[in-house]
């Protein structure tokens, strides 16, 4: 009976989930100061960063305000919508 050797190979794979963007869309009702206030409250941004993002929303019609894992992005969009801001999430390119 021949001896047999078993060769075990371990291959490591790290799956990196694609990030998701959280978007805020412009609307004619929400006050600019309110949008800034909500971005500071939900994401903990300082006033300067929140104001820059708010101005992007105002001028470009939308802004990516956060990127990261999907579960967290969903949570943030839910928070933004609870504050009545038009918001959505999309896969980052």
């Amino acid at each position, binding site marked *: 009976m021949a001896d047999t050797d078993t060769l075990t190979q371990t291959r490591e794979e790290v799956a990196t989930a694609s990030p998701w963007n959280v978007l805020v869309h412009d609307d004619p009702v929400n*006050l600019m*100061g*309110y949008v800034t206030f909500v971005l500071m409250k939900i994401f903990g941004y300082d006033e300067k960063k929140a104001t820059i993002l708010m101005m992007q929303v105002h001028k470009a019609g939308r802004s990516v305000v956060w990127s990261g894992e999907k579960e967290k992005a*969903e949570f943030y969009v839910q928070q933004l*919508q609870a*504050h*009545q801001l038009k918001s959505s999430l999309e896969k980052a390119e």
Partner: protein
Amino acid sequence: MKVAPTLEGGLRIDAEDLGDWEILHAILHDARRGDADLAGNLGALISEEAGAEDWRDFVVPDLREEFGDQISKVARDIEGAMEQSGGEAGSIWISKADGFIWYGALNQARLAIEDLHHFGPSEDVSMEDLHPARRSAFFRSQFYLAIQSMLLDHVMR
């Protein structure tokens, strides 16, 4: 009607007569407009790829309930204060803790007006061309906006 910040960090709305109470009641009328579904409209922004079906099933009902609660609370505040004053001069006291609820209800009223009339940015609205009903809606929206600005500057920040 007068609106002023309180020493406790809230806001006080003084109604002077029945006309003022009617204006305040209009907040509820506008916010409750039957065909305005804010939660549903927000939910429609979620793509199928992002999980629209789950959003419709789990998030939208919660948001709808939350938005409804905001209007119910403001209705209790307005109707309670009006009843206490007997339709004469009286005040509504908005505590700091209730600032966001009031802001949200006023926002719903303004969103419903915008949904119906499509005014866009207020600086682009010309009074001369407006039908009386649209003019009245525009002024109501501007009045709600003024209260919202005071809430944001004096109560919520």
